[in-house]
């Protein structure tokens, strides 16, 4: 059963200057991701990887084509329904962590609990999530007091707290040093082993190597991994 199904998805941005043609970042993307799959999408900067991820997370609704995530037709869902889908079914991880500076690590992890119908047994789950990423002892620390790797792990714990079946990550190791990045990749492998579906956009080969399938986003289309291209991105 598919966790993600895209058919002919196109995404255009308005021209940057009057008189120029609209910018087409995705030009008919087809994608099938099975439940429990660990997929990496590679591509150069500006190739549309983040756009694809935002689209899959229901954050960007202005596109053409068919898009189904966990059986839901994204184009048919209302804004509130999309919010509920993100709240319960999708975990997001961003390159720049995106933690709220005023909140502690634990409060950041608890953020999904503030919305919708909350997260059942949220406090315990948040501590479990922090424990899983090895930061149980930093629960009361503010993001400013954490290292880059620790912040990303808090962000991962936040993505996991609602126990979503699908994890979308945008360059999750982009701002981490090699050693910290390896730790995050190991964590993704663990999550995959637990049955979670992961779709990670990256331009780092070390992340792609951990995935069970790698696709390349090039010229607005997704295609199979190309050895030569992989070398280029390295």
């Amino acid at each position, binding site marked *: 059963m598919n966790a993600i199904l895209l058919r002919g998805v196109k995404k255009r941005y308005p021209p940057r200057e009057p008189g120029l043609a609209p910018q087409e970042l995705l030009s008919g993307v087809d994608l099938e991701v099975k439940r429990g799959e660990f997929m990496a999408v590679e591509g150069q900067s500006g190739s549309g990887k*983040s*756009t694809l991820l*935002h*689209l899959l*997370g229901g*954050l*960007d609704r202005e596109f053409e084509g068919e898009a189904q995530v966990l059986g839901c037709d994204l184009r048919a869902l209302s*804004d*509130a329904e999309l*919010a*509920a889908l*993100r*709240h*319960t079914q999708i975990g*997001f991880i*961003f390159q720049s962590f*995106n933690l*709220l*500076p*005023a*909140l502690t690590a634990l*409060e950041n992890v608890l*953020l*999904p*609990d*503030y*919305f*919708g119908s*909350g997260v059942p047994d949220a406090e315990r789950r948040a501590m479990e999530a922090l424990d899983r990423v090895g930061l149980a002892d930093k629960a009361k620390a503010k993001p400013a007091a954490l290292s880059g790797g620790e912040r990303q792990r808090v962000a991962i714990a*936040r993505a996991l707290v*609602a126990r979503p079946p699908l994890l979308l990550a945008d360059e999750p190791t982009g701002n981490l040093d090699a050693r910290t990045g390896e730790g995050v990749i190991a964590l993704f492998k663990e999550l995959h082993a637990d049955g979670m579906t992961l779709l990670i956009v990256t331009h780092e080969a070390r992340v792609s190597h951990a995935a069970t399938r790698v696709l390349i986003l090039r010229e607005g289309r997704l295609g199979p991994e190309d050895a030569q291209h992989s070398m280029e991105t390295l």
Partner: protein
Amino acid sequence: MRTGKLVRLARGNVVRELPALAVSAGGVALGIGCLVFFLALGAGLKRVVNDVFPVSTREVEVVVPSLAIGNILGEQKLDETIVEKLRKIRGVSAAYPKMQLRIPAVTRYNGLFFGREIHMGLEIVGVGLMPELVGTDAHAPFEDAGEGKPVPVVVNRRLLELYNKVFAPQRGLPTLTDTMLIGFQIPVELGRSYVAGKTLPNATEGSLLLVGFSDRATLAGVSLPLAAVRRINARFGADAETYSSVLLRAQSADDVSNIAAAVKRMGLEIDETERSRALQIGAAVELVTLALSLLAALITGLAAINTMQAFYASVRERTREIGVLRAVGATRGDVAAIVLAEAAVTGLAGGVVGVVLARIAAVLLDRLARTGLPDFPFKPESFFHFRVTHIAVGVAVALAAALLGAFLPARAAARLDPAKALTES
């Protein structure tokens, strides 16, 4: 999104944005401080006016019109029959006739007056009142005890105030309280006048016994029991049948206009002198309060605009953060609610600070008035009267101003495209 969680999230953001929001809250506090200050000042001054001119909204004073045709022909008069008719007007709950002492009377006092020897001679103006009208203001029976007995009198409180604040300081006399004077007797000569040719042939001596101070008492003299005035007028052959005025008490303030119309239909008139003066002064106070309150509202309005700018800036700065909130499941409504909750916290803080500032300013001004202003009649202990409603209005207006100011930024935050918000640097 549950209220508790919303408040927790908003509180964290407010703490983080404290410097910027403190400026907004300060603006709101200034506006609300002015508003509450002026409202309390208006209420305080109104209270002073009510003390000086105590007017009941349920009472009217009926008199014979001075220019009525019937009056010229000697037909228009306020006698018992008319009083009975007045009592029967719809909406009238009671009628209290009053009678002028229609003979001259003087007092001569030579002796000690609270430690000071004085020599005093006064023409006395007297008005007869029904004992029910004076009520508990009289500390001894306010009834005619009969010929040869002291006549109980009540004096208007305002006369005591004028004595204490004007007369006593100028003459070096002691200031007095009502309890010091109650029970005081002064000799009186009924039928005698200091005006040549006005003294009546059978003038007699007697005494007046001060039994209390009342707002019901006449301002121009002393008030005696109606029966005593009637007896004295009759004894000297003066008119003891017709009344000088009748006080009508309405069942409710809404009945007053109907009663006034009925009175006019009877060819009588409502004495508006005191009432209209009080109403005019009251209206002037209200007008000034309104103008100052509008000024305060303007300041609050500017504070709302300042709040709007602060929240626009805040939303701009937190664009990416808003994207994150949307990514973890916040709806547009949640985002708007968070911004509005922050505004509410800002407004409430501004409102509370504003009320406290108004209170402090009032205390300081009262202190200044106590020490800096000379003593004058009816000088109040405080020029301010803070009502719970003023505080409630102040806090509510502060809240409304902050919410109004944050409305457009909240809408803008809610409308942010989450995908674009997440890519904001």
